[in-house]
């Protein structure tokens, strides 16, 4: 809700000088405020330095070292992937948002668990079940939004309820943890990298099998394909995009379907992490959708569409994951998880206030 559109002339006066004449400090400040990636990188460094200092002062209950940071990355896998799903959807504009990703994780996870654990299908076939079912659930959102004209918030709120309910009903509210599923836990373990691995910390396998491929594919889609460029056009101005000959509806539908496909992949990751297909995997507590949206906003995705980058999502997740890991060491037990809520809330409020400020000061993120 932008209440005042015009920029303030007094504040922008410094901006009007040619770049070369401005001193380094003001340029650094502008980069920090306008380039979300720069800000996130600085914040990550601050978090690591502060936590390491606390560690060397003996204030932490465990070592905050590269091994710990690497092992905490396990929780980054679903966050980055769902953050990328939200990136795609929010980017597409017209109030794009997907509240249903957590429910799709639950429902596709149950379908995967049934196929792999109960019907004894091969892993690849079961993976396809998760991915295709996720794609179909996402496409339902896409049809409602792109073809019938539902506001995305409403369409995905409705399917959030529906999928979440279906996951609980078809599984009879019981998790699936047959032997196959339990053995599947090995997919979530940490591994040593080949060749150079000996001197580096152990990194969870999911980073290589799921996170990095997804991030690369989404990056490639957004930056190197016409689909990606159309998406930015769509998000910036729906009507203008239509007049330039972009077929708006199929493109918007595709975005929601892709978001569902990513949620289907996350379902498989989650099953491996829990060693069990839980019907409430993506919906228990605050669910998975809200943290994913938080990551997207923190990563500099404009909620109005048209602005957002893959690198922002990755860095925002690293910041949150490493901050949370540090909080857990500084305040063990319940205190830690409670202060994680506070940290997430404060970071989100300040990130969005900052978005508003930079918009007025520099005109855009």
């Amino acid at each position, binding site marked *: 809700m932008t209440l005042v559109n015009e920029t303030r002339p007094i504040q922008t006066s410094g901006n009007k000088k040619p770049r070369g004449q401005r001193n380094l400090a003001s340029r650094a400040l502008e980069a920090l405020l306008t380039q979300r990636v720069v800000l996130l990188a600085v914040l990550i460094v601050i978090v690591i330095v502060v936590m390491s200092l606390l560690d060397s002062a003996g204030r932490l209950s465990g070592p905050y070292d590269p091994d710990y940071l690497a092992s905490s990355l396990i929780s980054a896998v679903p966050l980055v992937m769902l953050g990328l799903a939200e990136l795609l959807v929010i980017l597409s504009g017209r109030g794009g948002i997907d509240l249903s990703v957590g429910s799709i994780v639950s429902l596709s996870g149950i379908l995967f668990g049934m196929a792999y654990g109960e019907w004894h299908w091969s892993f690849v076939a079961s993976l396809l079940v998760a991915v295709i079912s996720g794609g179909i659930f996402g496409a339902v959102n896409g049809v409602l939004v792109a073809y*019938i004209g539902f506001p995305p918030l409403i369409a995905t709120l409705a399917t959030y309820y529906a999928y979440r309910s279906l996951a609980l009903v078809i599984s009879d*509210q019981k998790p699936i943890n047959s032997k196959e599923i339990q053995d599947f836990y090995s997919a979530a373990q940490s591994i040593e990298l080949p060749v150079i691995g000996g001197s580096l910390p152990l990194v969870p396998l999911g980073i290589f099998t799921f996170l990095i491929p997804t991030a690369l594919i989404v990056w490639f889609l957004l930056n190197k394909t016409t689909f990606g460029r159309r998406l930015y056009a769509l998000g910036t101005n729906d009507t203008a995009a239509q007049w330039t000959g972009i077929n708006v509806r199929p493109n918007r539908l595709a975005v929601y379907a892709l978001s569902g496909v990513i949620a289907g992949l996350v379902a498989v990751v989650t099953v491996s992490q829990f060693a069990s297909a839980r019907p409430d995997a993506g919906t228990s507590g605050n669910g998975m959708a809200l943290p994913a949206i938080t990551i997207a*906003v923190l990563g500099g995705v404009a909620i109005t569409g048209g602005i957002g980058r893959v690198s922002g999502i990755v860095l925002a997740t690293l910041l949150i994951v490493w901050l949370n890991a540090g909080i857990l060491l500084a305040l063990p037990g319940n205190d830690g998880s409670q202060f994680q809520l506070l940290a997430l809330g404060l970071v989100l409020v300040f990130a969005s206030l900052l978005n508003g400020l930079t918009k007025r000061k520099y005109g855009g993120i």
Partner: protein
Amino acid sequence: MSIDERTKAAPPAKATARRILPSPVTGQEFVLIGVIAVLWVLLGIFTPAFLTPNSIQPLLVSIAPIALIGVGMTFVIITAGIDVSVGGAIMLCAVVVAKTMVSADVPLFVALAIAIGLGLLLGLINGALIAYGRVHAIIITFGTANIFQFVALRVFASSTVNGIPGTLDVFGRGEAGRTFGVPHSFAITVLVVIVAWWYLRHTAGGRHLFAIGGNANAARLAGIKVQPRVMLAYGLTGALVGLAACFIIASGTSTLDQAVGSGKELQVIAAVVIGGTSILGGRGSVIGTLLGAILVQTVTSGVTQLGWPSQLANLFVGIFIIIAVGTDLLRERARRKS
């Protein structure tokens, strides 16, 4: 999105108040009344126990908090905003009031004042950030939801609050909570809905909210003080959250656990959009919200009474959202064509 078509059609010189105003009950509301009536009849046929006071009274008690917060949420959504922090705010108000009652055994009106005052404060925090920070409402309220939950969990200290005295029983499910068979909490909710309906329809302040939701810039240029009005909408939501938290404590047992309020924000938003309020702002009604809350809770209670898995209720809620908003979209499209 637009203010009602008739506003434009009315001749300015001779326009009477009645001709400018939209009709008191919208088409969506008639449809909802019909759907609820059909549901109640069907449930009455298939589960004979449904249309008895023992089943209707708890249903009305369960409708009250959703509809009450829904009134505030309707105001917020009419201004083209949204508040997803109500779940966290319920949790915080409920635990503060419960703890106060356990430790000090305060009288009823003090408990109410604490709850409503605290809720108002939380709402005004949201409102100030949204109106003056000029950031998107959904993002800010996601953030404050986390912060409210954090504070609530700190106040909880242990996993539950035990031994809550019966101070709030006048809003509860028991005999003390009813007059002539009507639960007090539901009666208060209906009263709030009527006052809110009158405010939105018949006062300048109410019409300003619609104008802000239709086009905030145009509203500002027309001389409406946008920011105080927006703060009012969020503050009202907060105050009603406080009152609803009291209803929730009263309708539970003497123990309050940390799950209180969890997921309520989506339930409230579902009731509001089923009631025909446009999420894009500028259009909506509190009567629709009350009917939406009745529909959602009827489905929830009906599924249980039919002996179906209770989780199935959410599937129907999802389907009702799609049908309600879908028919609204189709009607809008037909109206634009004609």
